[in-house]
């Protein structure tokens, strides 16, 4: 059977390539990985005008075929038919930004030289007009020798024509001479690109560009950093406050469903497993979906507007003091959602030492998996009062935890750069793209993909560890007058851990939660949920976890627990991705050790201080 024809979508960063890919494929996308490297592979299906299916692959944005990053290397290798896990594309769709032709045409010329059947999408033609630029697409077509189609991907303009041209190229048999593109040097290509661009411009009316005006404010020496801080603060307050209604609804629904099933089933191990294991455990984690989605929504919107790079620009100098570059800002900010994509995003950092340092400190950024832990403990122990207009104490504590993570990361980077990761570094080079309105469908597709990953985790890793933990915590059964968490197998394992963590104020329930939380941090919440649910027995029905918690822990213990989670490297996925990205066990092992040591002392210092202030 002949595989479905493959079309590669290639172009410079910021050409609107992903928007075009989304417009052509809609929700029919799959995100995977290229084997051996951690570059995401986005493929989607589309239909040609004659009704036959075609597969599109969205290649990482690149400036040329001479890669300076692993992402760009994948783009080159796919186009030359050298990439493992990808067949050679039958056709090429090149996306160029209409208002940045002189630059984007250089890569286009390189790509056309590859000899694949090619269509060029002259994208964001509307923004070029807004900037006073009038282009002649036919002239461009003559110069390049391939079809050029005006598109506005975000409004789906020109999509049918693109598919039509691709269809025509794919049905027309043509010899492919890929892999033998003549190697012109960059500067020669650039000069030719500028000539062609000049020839295609019909008229240019100078206008004061919106981007220029916005940068005047957002990159202002005083206003810029204040606006950045305000956006970050708004983001963290939003995560806490906007999520309340949907999270409460989800919690109520899980409680109701758990109680309903509990009443419907006969008492026994099965009922206990479903109610105490499944609903109390997995349910406790699902409740945090709204917060995770709000956080991702912020990150996706900031990225698609073009603001994220400005944030990197503002932060570069400060990050350079910690031995990092502004480039590390985006991976580190993504790590607030999850360290795994954050660590993968370090591939855009071309300096290997800068990159390694960023990877090692990325787990200190407060990821969304910590949110379940933080919010649970904060809701149980920190009163919901306001300390200023629109500033809740709970939100403030959460903000403080984020700050602690950031400060920890900067300090760690500083120390690492002077000890184990010395040398290298010293540059920061990024394109500042035009500002754009966030593309709602693109944000929605991104959110959907993240939600699916989170729910898949909840359905697999978290479900499995929850059930194993439920079994360990349920057997042997407690006799009259005994506490279930004392007699069970899990209870005995926890005794061992407890001996180590007792000095830093952790009780036995926490010790019990720490081990399964190695799989993923949010499992700690699920684990505590399961244990308390079992201890409560059958007669009480389901209570919320906060209610159970607030009576059992001292404030000092709760604070120490929070401090522990700021640092502790409790996430198998992060350790695995670090191994992959650093090609070996040396750095992930180093990372795990230094973070556990930090976590232990941070929790200890918090506990001892709190006890000294009489909060024990």
């Amino acid at each position: 059977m002949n595989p479905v024809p493959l079309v590669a979508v290639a172009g410079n960063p910021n050409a609107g390539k992903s928007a075009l890919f989304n417009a052509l494929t809609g929700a029919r996308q799959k995100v995977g990985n290229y084997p051996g490297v951690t570059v995401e592979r986005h493929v989607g299906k589309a239909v040609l005008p004659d009704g036959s299916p075609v597969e599109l692959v969205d290649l990482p944005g690149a400036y040329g075929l001479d890669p300076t990053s692993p992402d760009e290397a994948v783009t080159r290798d796919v186009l030359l038919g050298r990439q493992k896990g990808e067949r050679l594309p039958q056709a090429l769709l090149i996306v160029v930004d209409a208002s940045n032709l002189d630059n984007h045409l250089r890569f286009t010329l390189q790509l056309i030289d590859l000899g694949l059947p090619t269509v060029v999408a002259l994208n964001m033609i509307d923004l070029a007009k807004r900037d006073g630029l009038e282009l002649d697409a036919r002239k461009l077509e003559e110069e390049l020798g391939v079809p050029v189609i005006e598109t506005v991907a975000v409004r789906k303009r020109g999509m049918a024509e693109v598919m039509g041209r691709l269809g025509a190229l794919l049905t027309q048999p043509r010899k492919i001479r890929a892999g033998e593109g003549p190697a012109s040097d960059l500067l020669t290509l650039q000069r030719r690109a500028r000539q062609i661009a000049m020839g295609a411009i019909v008229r240019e009316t100078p206008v004061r560009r919106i981007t220029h005006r916005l940068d005047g404010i957002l990159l202002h020496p005083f206003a810029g950093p204040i606006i950045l801080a305000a956006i970050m603060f708004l983001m963290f307050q939003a995560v806490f406050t906007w999520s309340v209604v949907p999270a409460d609804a989800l919690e109520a629904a899980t409680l109701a469903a758990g109680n309903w099933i509990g009443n419907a089933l006969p008492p026994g191990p099965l009922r206990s497993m479903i109610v105490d294991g499944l609903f109390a455990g997995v349910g406790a984690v699902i409740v945090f979906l709204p917060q995770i989605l709000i956080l991702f929504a912020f990150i996706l919107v900031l990225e698609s507007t073009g603001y994220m790079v400005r944030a990197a620009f503002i932060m570069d100098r400060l990050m350079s003091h910690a031995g990092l570059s502004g480039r590390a800002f985006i991976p580190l900010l993504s790590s607030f959602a999850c360290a795994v994509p954050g660590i993968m995003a370090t591939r855009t950092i071309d300096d290997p030492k800068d990159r390694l340092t960023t990877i090692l400190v990325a787990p200190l950024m407060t990821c969304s998996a910590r949110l379940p832990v933080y919010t649970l403990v904060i809701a149980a122990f920190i009163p919901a009062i306001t300390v200023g207009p629109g500033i809740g104490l709970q939100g403030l504590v959460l903000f403080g935890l984020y700050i602690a993570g950031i400060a920890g990361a900067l300090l760690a980077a500083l120390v690492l750069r002077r000890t184990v990761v010395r040398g290298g570094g010293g540059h920061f080079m990024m394109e500042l793209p035009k500002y754009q309105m966030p593309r709602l469908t693109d944000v929605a597709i991104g959110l959907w993909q993240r939600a699916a990953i989170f729910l898949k985790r909840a359905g697999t890793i978290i479900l499995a560890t929850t059930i194993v933990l439920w079994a360990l915590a349920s057997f042997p059964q407690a006799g009259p007058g005994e506490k279930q968490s004392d007699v069970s197998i899990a209870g005995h394992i926890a005794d061992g851990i407890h001996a180590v963590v007792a000095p830093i104020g952790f009780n036995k329930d926490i010790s019990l939660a720490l081990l399964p939380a190695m799989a993923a941090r949010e499992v700690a919440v699920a684990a505590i949920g399961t244990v308390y649910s079992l201890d409560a027995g059958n007669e009480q029905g389901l209570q919320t976890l906060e209610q159970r918690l607030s009576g059992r822990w001292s404030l000092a213990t709760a604070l120490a627990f929070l401090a522990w989670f700021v640092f502790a490297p409790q996430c198998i996925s992060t350790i695995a991705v670090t191994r992959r990205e650093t090609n070996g066990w040396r750095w992930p092992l180093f990372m795990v050790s230094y973070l556990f040591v930090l976590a232990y002392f941070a929790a200890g210092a918090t506990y001892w201080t709190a006890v000294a202030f009489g909060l024990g």
Partner: protein
Amino acid sequence: MTGPIIPLDQLKLGTRARIAAIDWAALGDSEANRLKHFGFDEDVMVVPLHLGPFGRDPLAVRVGRMTVAIRKAQARAIKVSTEAA
């Protein structure tokens, strides 16, 4: 008429200038490559636009139709000449 030739990091913000020369040897391989990718080349017009708020570094430069951020250490290798009015 061209003005004196100065390094890009010493050009006043908002001043248009023409790149007279780039000291490629003063840059690392990947730095040089990236600058070429951004379109830095002799005879290209540049305008420094913004400075980072902390320590007046990095520098946002308009080059051709693109705005890019580079650190002053790299900007120093780019020599520009201002057009006399």
